[in-house]
């Protein structure tokens, strides 16, 4: 995250050309986009494509190895692993989608407020942001989860809090840059009210780097949710998520390695795909880094 401030501000019309640059001549990016799309479809269609009920236990098929009945085998409760993975994708993707969006909204609000108004508001917000940024997101998430506990909305809150400081810093830096622009001065001079200036002139002009960060960090959010669920403070069993499938698999590894192997593979593939897309976006924005 250290170089997130270095992302320059593209003007809005450049975004479409940027999308072209991201994809052009990069088969890895196209494959990654396709991968994310496939997982999204799997998550959406889970009830129709999962071969079995992910929660249904079967005591005659405990720890079954992969077979034509259970394509990836079963866990210690005789639950179908493939179906659990398919349903688990819903949790991973929804967190990867929701928490960066919420964090972007919260962070933009904080950053724009601090950057636009300056003064003591800026000092207080900056101080807290700097302090929170000293924490790795995982540690921050664990500490907040320790206070809040697991469950869907708590996990959303935890991930949102973990990513908000990063968005706030970028939003603040971008706002400071935009504030110098003549059109803001012009708006102030012509008596436009402050909320209108902020929502009509500032926010749209800092939205591009925020959107880029949202792509980059949805990979982090997915990995973070998996880690929290693995630690037992994320998605709570019996609901399946890739992280807690691995958690349960670890307790049962003497019987079958399949839950660990496949659950981890799913996380790795999705995170790899999303961060490949994110890297391409950043490269296109800042060709110097390559």
């Amino acid at each position: 995250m250290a170089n997130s401030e270095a992302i320059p501000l593209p003007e809005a019309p450049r975004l479409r050309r940027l999308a072209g640059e991201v994809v052009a001549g990069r088969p890895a990016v196209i494959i990654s986009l396709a991968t994310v799309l496939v997982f999204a479809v799997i998550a959406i269609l889970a009830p129709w494509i999962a071969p079995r009920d992910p929660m249904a236990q079967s005591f005659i098929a405990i720890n079954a190895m992969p077979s034509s009945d259970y394509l990836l085998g079963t866990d210690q409760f005789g639950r179908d692993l493939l179906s659990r993975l398919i349903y688990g994708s819903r949790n991973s993707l929804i967190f990867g989608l929701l928490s960066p969006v919420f964090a972007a909204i919260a962070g933009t609000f904080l950053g724009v407020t601090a950057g636009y108004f300056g003064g003591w508001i800026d000092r207080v917000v900056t101080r807290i942001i700097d302090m929170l940024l000293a924490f790795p997101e995982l540690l921050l998430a664990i500490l907040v989860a320790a206070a809040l506990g697991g469950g869907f909305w708590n996990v959303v809150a935890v991930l949102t809090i973990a990513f908000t400081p990063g968005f706030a810093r970028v939003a603040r830096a971008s706002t400071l840059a935009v504030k110098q622009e003549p059109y803001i001065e012009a708006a102030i001079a012509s008596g436009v009210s402050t909320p209108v200036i902020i929502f009509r002139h500032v926010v749209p002009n800092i939205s591009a780097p925020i959107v880029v960060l949202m792509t980059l960090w949805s990979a982090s959010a997915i990995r973070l949710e998996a880690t929290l669920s693995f630690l037992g403070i994320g998605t709570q069993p019996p609901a399946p998520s890739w992280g807690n499938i691995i958690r349960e698999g670890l307790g049962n590894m003497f019987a079958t390695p399949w839950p660990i192997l496949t659950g981890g593979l799913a996380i790795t593939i999705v995170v790899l795909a999303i961060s490949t897309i994110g890297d391409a976006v950043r490269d296109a924005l800042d060709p110097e880094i390559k």
Partner: protein
Amino acid sequence: MTRYILTRLLDAVPTMLLVLTLVFLAMRVLPGDPALAALGDGAQPEAIAQFRERFGLNDPLWLQYLHFMRDMLTFDFGASLMSGERVAQLLVSNLGYTVELTIAAVLLGIMGGIPLGVMAALNRNRAPDAGFRVFSLLGYAIPDFYLGAVLLIVFSLSLGWFPISGAGDGFADRMHHLVLPALTLALLKVAFLGRLTRTALLEVLGRDFVRTARAKGARENRVIYRHALRNALLPLSTGLGLSILSTLSGSVAVELVFNRPGLGKLLITAITERDYPIVQAGVVVFAAAVVVVNLLMELVYVIIDPRIRVQ
């Protein structure tokens, strides 16, 4: 120099107080009643009342805050609800395992990451660089607990080369227990530090002093390691601070995978057992570690780059 260190130390005091205040707010003010959290949703009202009384949760918030700050600043963390052991004692006995794991992983990360990053930078846009790019992408994408579990299955469970759980007794045994967990955490560091080294080195290699070194006939190794890499150290040391902290947070999951004692395992177990005093103390200790590591890194900058002192 002394003056700089003193101002930095003094600067850390309000930061630590702010961290403690945020921890207090998170534990007491955020939704979620500590009494309910500790006793479970089905707790008897009398039990809840008793719990609130015992931990002073009925006091006004400002008084609770003062008590909390007093307890934390005097290292009085109370006793475990489960075992009755002093929390301070538990923290001390677990600290060593986590420190040992963090140091081992960071050292391995440096030993692997810097040479790999140098190699990638010197072979920019050729096969070794591309190979490293793939490696670092993978290193970023594979969750450490998954990597740890796979290593555990392959090398402990199937091959029987390493122990399956615990941290061992005596030096040799402890090192034996340390190998897989440290490797697990180190892989991510290798990817991260390697990437940083590559970027920092590429930036420096084009500079005049590198050309001068070459022109005066210094051998290539000397040019790279003495002239170029040395000037790339500053961004690298920032990365080092980040990697120590991310290793520390990664150790939480890795301790769980390898069933190793340590601060992370203590905290996570306490969360699942709803052992409120341990959770609170664990959160404070991890937060304090972040402040301390950042402070140390600032001091390292001054040693590497004396120019900072003057500013």
